[in-house]
């Protein structure tokens, strides 16, 4: 019995060995195990035999068929691999060609830096507040302790509009008053107010429209030390632990005492260069304790509460973070320039 099987196996193996492609193998399959194949026909003949012979002959034929199928499939698989390789070789692509970038846009760097700041202060428990850009002179000046002939009005060259007693706000500080009014005497008042502001200046480091972020905290027992702590926490979050800071007395009509904060010049690392006028420091923000008149104008009693406020220029900070020396390209919106901000900056939120 096994002789007959191995004989079929030998013949088949010889046939398969000469088959060069899967079509030839398919022909062999038809010859042996197809619908009219030799083994198939022999199996169909079994019914004519007596039961005893049918049983033994059936075992032999089935075993032969199984063996034939195995050999054919083995050969097919082997040829299939070769043919796949040939096919895939034909599909070869130049893998050094650059892929197609996903079509996504990018937020403007000023939006990104603004969000970075908002994020830092939200984590410190500040809420976002807003005010109009076309502001009354009362909110923009008088309420902030800047009367008509105050010497400080010559510091801020304002844009006036053809609406009486209205001005394009020169700073986000009017939101201090609006924020206190909105809080209606509740404590603490803890807000930041990002927004567009306007001054009549146009050069490499000044633009007639720019962005500021204002901060205000009013509560019982707020100190100048609290201001220092808050600003240091902010600079660490924005510029890293290694940044050095310095506080200087300054002047703003709506704070008393007033303090400016400098950070190490990014351009020279503190050695002194043209950017920092040789001092090694660049100013990043103005701040101070809220002036008693401003607290009063916001509806708070300066004898019972105190507060601090600060304002910083988002453009200045963006220039610092991205190492820019000219503010104007930020408003030209040259997409090639904006593309330069695609790269990861080391700060996840950006």
């Amino acid at each position, binding site marked *: 019995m096994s002789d007959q099987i191995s004989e079929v196996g030998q013949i088949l193996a010889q046939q398969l060995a000469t088959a060069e492609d899967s079509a030839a193998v398919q022909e062999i399959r038809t010859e042996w195990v197809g619908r009219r194949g030799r083994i198939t026909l022999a199996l169909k003949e079994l019914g004519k035999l007596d039961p005893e012979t049918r049983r033994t002959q059936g075992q032999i034929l089935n075993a032969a068929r199984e063996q034939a199928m195995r050999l054919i499939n083995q050969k097919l698989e082997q040829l299939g691999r070769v043919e796949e390789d040939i096919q895939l070789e034909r599909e070869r692509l130049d893998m050094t060609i650059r892929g197609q970038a996903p079509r996504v846009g990018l937020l403007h760097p000023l939006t990104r830096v603004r969000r970075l700041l908002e994020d830092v202060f939200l984590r410190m428990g500040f809420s976002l507040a807003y005010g109009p850009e076309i502001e009354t002179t009362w909110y923009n000046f008088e309420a902030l302790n800047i009367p008509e002939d105050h010497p400080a009005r010559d510091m801020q060259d304002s844009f006036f509009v053809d609406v009486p007693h209205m001005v394009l706000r020169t700073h986000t500080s009017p939101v201090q008053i609006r924020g206190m009014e909105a809080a209606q005497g509740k404590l*603490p008042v803890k807000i930041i107010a990002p927004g567009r502001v306007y001054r009549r200046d146009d050069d490499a480091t000044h633009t007639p429209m720019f962005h500021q972020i204002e901060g205000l905290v009013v509560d019982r027992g707020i100190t100048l030390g609290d201001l220092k702590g808050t600003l240091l926490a902010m600079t660490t979050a924005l510029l890293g632990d290694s940044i050095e800071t310095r506080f200087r007395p300054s002047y703003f009509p709506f704070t008393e005492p007033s303090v400016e904060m400098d950070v190490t010049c990014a351009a020279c690392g503190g050695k002194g260069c043209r950017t920092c006028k040789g001092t090694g420091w660049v100013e990043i923000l103005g701040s101070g304790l809220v002036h008693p008149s401003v607290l009063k104008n916001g509806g708070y009693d300066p004898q019972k509460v105190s507060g601090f406020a600060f304002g910083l220029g988002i453009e200045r900070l963006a220039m610092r973070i991205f190492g820019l020396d000219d503010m104007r390209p930020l408003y030209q919106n040259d997409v090639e320039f904006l593309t330069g901000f695609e790269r990861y900056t080391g700060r996840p939120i950006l």
Partner: protein
Amino acid sequence: MKISHRWLARHLVNMPGPQRVADALLQMGIEISAMQSWGDSYTCVELVEIRAREPHPNADHLSVVTVRRGDGTESIVVTGADNGFPGDRVWYAPPGTLLPDGRVLQTVLMRGIPSPGMLLSASELGFHDTTGDLWLYHGDLAPGSVFLDAVGGTDTVYELELTPNLAVFDQSVVGIARELAAVLHLTLRPLAPPYKYGDATDLVRVQAFDACPLYGLSAFDVRDLTSSPLWLQALLLSIGVRVIHPLVDITNFILWDLGQPLHAFDRDKVVLPIAVRLAKPGEQLLMLDGTDRSLSPEDLVIADQEGPIALAGIMGGQRTAIGPSTEHVLVESAHFESGRIFRSMRRHHFMSDAALHFGKGTDPAILPVAAQATRELLESFGGQVAIGPSVMVGSEPNLRKIRLEPERIRSLLGVDWSVEVIEDALKRLRFHVHDGWVTVPSNRHDVLMTEDLCEEVARVLGLDAIPVTLPISAATPGTRDPRVSFEERLRDLLCDAGYWEVVTRPFWSSARSILEMAVPGETIRLTNPLRDEEEELRTSLLPHVLEVVGYNRARRDQPISVFEIAPVYQKQQGKPEEIMQLAVAETLEEYPQYPKGQDLGIYRLKGTLEWVNHRLNLRVAESLDAAVPDFMHPGRSVALVDHRRQVVGFLGELRPRLAVHFHAKRIAVLSLWSIGVAPNAATGIVPSPSRYPEVLRDLSLLIPENTNYGTIAAQIEANRPNDLKSFRLIDVFAGEWGRSMTVRMVFQSREKTLTDSEVDGQIGLLLGNLAQRQITIRER
């Protein structure tokens, strides 16, 4: 403000070096923007003695002079000066010397004779020149000495930046010296004693005491004053003040030394008595600078019997100006109310050093000191000086007193400093502390209340001494504004969809307009624009975004997709309004690029809007009923309406002839007004996926003329089969028989596996309904 180190040293015992000065001033809130050395070029200029003088053989007006230098050698120099004879000592600048006017001297051939360097006049050294000839030296220095020794050595000049509050009392050398003394524990040298004014009450009538609380006038007779001493000239020159005439030099010196502006009148030209009064309407004054000013009763003037002779605190008039021959002088030393001077200065758009001092505030107590200093300087100049009549009218204002609240100072600063420490800090700044009250020095008009004292204490002790703390407040979570958060989400989604955010400035001018836009409100104009093309505030955002497209396209032939979310501005019934808008613009050409991109045309932007609309529940829909602006492609644009069917924008292609203005063939634009009104994105319940298979059917529908996909979709929606999950257009085909659209329909049940006959039944019903609109199944 410029200030000289040597000048400062006149007021301070043990003057510290420049770096300590800079550090101390910074602690006091005074920034030094520049620090320069002065006098370096004077080290080359040498005192020489003239040995011989011969006429130049080839020129009538030149002479050949032999000088002996300090090392004993002789040099032969050609000069055009008429003076300088053997025995005279003069200043010689050898080749290589840099003169104050910027010239670098060389050896030049003068009519055939080489002249190494030159012999100098006073003006060539930058000093006051009375003759125009060589500057003869009559002092004690030996030949060979350098000019720098004659002026007292080199100097360091600081350029200070004074904040307005510090300008009230720090615009003088003594002011800065007092700051240094306070922070560095230095001793100040005493100032001159007050001038003993006489009682010549007939000299002055003060009629406006509010504006001029104190007015001093003193007469001097001077003769033979030629020029100011070198030390004084050098100090003035170092801070950039020209030396002109001894009387003028003295007033300038005292202005910068003590912060007290003085004015000198020629007594022979003044018709006494002088009146200090408000100007009369229509009065004119010809000023020293040659301008003619029309005065108003808001101006304070100094007048004589013929009319105004000075605009008080700002500038004198020409009629009574002193000149080189003036011998009888009236020196005014006065105290004016700063606000009035500041307003006058503003009204006349007029600045002078005096006005910058009076306008910020001067020290009434220094007024007689300045008069005495004038006298002492005059007497030291070597001429003849006689003291004439004088008078001071008015009285010094009372000194301000503030209650000392150490606890409040401590709690505002966040420190635990003792009363003694606080008092000592104040005393170092010349405040008097007695019995719980702080008396404010007469020049500190800026100190009004405890908060101001806080600042003074913090300045003297240094901000670094204040401990770093964080506010201890009730823990309140930070909140965002829902409207702004919505705008931020919109920004993010547009970026995700492939559009770049831009930021433009809202200044506009109708002259820049290429698109004709109807605006509901009235345009807001700037009354003081920087330039004509920025004279108004934008009423629409789209033109700015299109300008960005144009700016980029003019630079490179690349596709561009940009958007901005920003306010526009208008007036409604006279009130300004700020309305948030969205504008998107995208070029539509195909570009050679690899791998090849797919140009979807306007459908990319439309798809983005639909996606954003879906994501944010903007509830914006297209409307064929509403008109689109004329600048839009009539066949490829559509108006957008909100859920109340109000038109809120448009989407489509710009007319190609307008796109050309922005250097593009085709531009897709989206303009959405009032985006702030959209409600929060709906959340609701998200359905679980069905466990049963989907059945797909593609229906090719033959559609009548003028029927668009919107009609078909609306019909399918209106007669939606029960188990229809979704449908979408997959093909549009046109033949002789008409036009067909193939819609792929996806059926799926949540309860069972759908059979073919169930789906066929549902489609049959739908086709029945579509047939009523002449939409039939395509047979071929």
